[in-house]
């Protein structure tokens, strides 16, 4: 079964499985354990114009079926990325997505402009939804008008495909998705982590150095599916879904909710090879549930279509 995915501006994934930003470094870290070129793509760690130090430790905490993190987007900045990390990425035979972050509209524009001519980068993921930074970032992600202006700024400096990663931490995430599509976004990625808190009983204080954190893992899969479902039915552009994916069956749920591709993250920490296993199993799972192509599964749940072709009401 052909698993390739055609996305806007000529971007083609060899399969719909992309390593999620923040869980896969800048590519070489997992290359000892994962055949990176088998993946549909990788979204690298968020890149800001200048280095960001990130939040104080502890930065991770286990929760039931979830992982709470407060990394704070530590990264070496645009210049170091171009000098030290881009050369490896140029050697890859898979789609490389640059996740870009900033405190201001101008900073997002700076990173996109700085990477526009970098051949290692095939697309952008504009991160306006990380719950672990105070200034910028999520303040754009929760305001459709501000999100629109970030997207316009990025669009003004690049003709590469751009997706915007939206936040689940608001009542109506689709308003931001609609606004960034209006601003020129080619795709939406959803969702970023769900804001949360854990308490360390022994130390009598929040478990994470950053106080609150972003929840990922299977605990958030239903939240993610609902957001993908709402957005994919409202916008005309492709949606890349993510949140707690652990299996090919989980991928199919996201496809049927309306995603055209997915990102996989937290599970990689436990099972570095799980993304490859999902790629191997996905054709079998699609066939098992009666789909003759990947395309056929996208949005299949919208009309309650069953495997024998009968249509439910909507």
């Amino acid at each position, binding site marked *: 079964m052909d698993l390739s995915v055609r996305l806007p501006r000529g971007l083609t994934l060899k399969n719909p499985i992309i390593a999620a930003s923040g869980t896969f*470094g800048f590519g070489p870290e997992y290359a000892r354990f994962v055949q990176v070129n088998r993946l549909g793509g990788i979204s690298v760690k968020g890149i800001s114009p200048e280095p960001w130090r990130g939040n*104080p430790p502890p*930065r991770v905490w286990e929760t039931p079926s979830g992982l709470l993190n407060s990394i704070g987007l530590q990264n070496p900045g645009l210049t170091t990325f171009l000098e030290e990390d881009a050369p490896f990425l140029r050697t890859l035979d898979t789609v490389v997505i640059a996740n870009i972050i900033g405190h201001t509209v101008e900073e997002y524009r700076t990173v996109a402009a700085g990477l526009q001519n970098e051949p290692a980068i095939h697309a952008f993921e504009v991160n306006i939804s990380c719950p672990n930074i105070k200034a910028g970032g999520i303040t754009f992600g929760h305001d459709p008008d501000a999100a629109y202006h970030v997207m316009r700024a990025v669009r003004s400096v690049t003709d590469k495909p751009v997706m915007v990663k939206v936040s689940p931490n608001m009542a109506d995430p689709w308003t931001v998705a609609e606004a960034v599509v209006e601003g020129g976004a080619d795709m939406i990625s959803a969702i970023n982590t769900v804001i949360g808190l854990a308490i360390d009983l022994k130390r009598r204080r929040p478990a994470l150095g950053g106080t609150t954190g972003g929840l990922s893992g299977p605990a958030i899969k239903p939240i993610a599916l609902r957001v993908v479902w709402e957005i994919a039915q409202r916008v005309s552009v492709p949606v890349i879904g993510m949140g707690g994916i652990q299996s090919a069956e989980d991928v199919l749920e996201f496809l049927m909710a309306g995603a055209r591709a997915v990102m996989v993250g937290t599970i990689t920490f436990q099972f570095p090879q799980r993304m490859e296993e999902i790629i191997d199993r996905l054709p079998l799972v699609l066939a098992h549930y009666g789909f003759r192509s990947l395309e056929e599964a996208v949005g299949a749940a919208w009309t309650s279509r069953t495997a024998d072709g009968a249509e439910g009401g909507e």
Partner: protein
Amino acid sequence: MAGAFKAPIVAALAVAPRHVELVIEHPELSMAAPGQFAHILTPGMLRRPVSFSRIDPQRGRAGLLVQVVGQGTAWLAERSPGEWLDVLAPLGRGFQAPDPARPWILVGGGVGIPPLYSAWERWGPQHRAPACAILGAREADGILMAGDFQGAGLLPVLATEDGSAGRRGTVVGPLEEWLARYPEAQVMACGPNGMLAQVSRVAAGATGPVQLAMEQRMGCGIGACLACVVPATPVGPEGPRYRRVCTDGPVFFREELAWSWI
């Protein structure tokens, strides 16, 4: 180099209350070095990093001394010989080999003792200058591997806070005495952050290298997620630089760490 593999447990020994040592076997473990660790799959959301307590390169065997602190380590402590562990190993920057002609002080606190034993096991036989192992814990039950050190030719100095084994007090007293006698000594230490901060302070005047093996809550274990950081130098106006325990460490030189932020 490191690999992802399943290794059989060839021995499991309850070494102290709430402490179990598992020995696993795999050819990749021949490459393991003292101070490095294995990232072990458990039923939780994250693997558990455990330093090597002993390494047998000929047989490809390594020891993992686990202290039960939560559900993941409790699960590990229940494993038996014949079962398999799914590990990423060997990982991280281990200890730099000691200068065999320079006095050598090993300082271990509680579950920080095992990586120091693996260092002594590896480099002790060639060591020509005086050497000393100072092992500390809150109480006698927390002193691990004292018999292993003794069996490998080094009678350790013990210190417990309640006085139930060795001297009453912490490892700092014996360390100060040894550094006074051998100011050129090289130091290797592993233990709780409070102990390492004291070792770092006491050893500040020493002329030899001071290597400290750090612990932190860890995500991927291979350098990708930036979860397991510790405050490091240089410290700028806004604070320290954060470095990864899993790949920049676990072993750091004293000067690399920003102790006032830890």
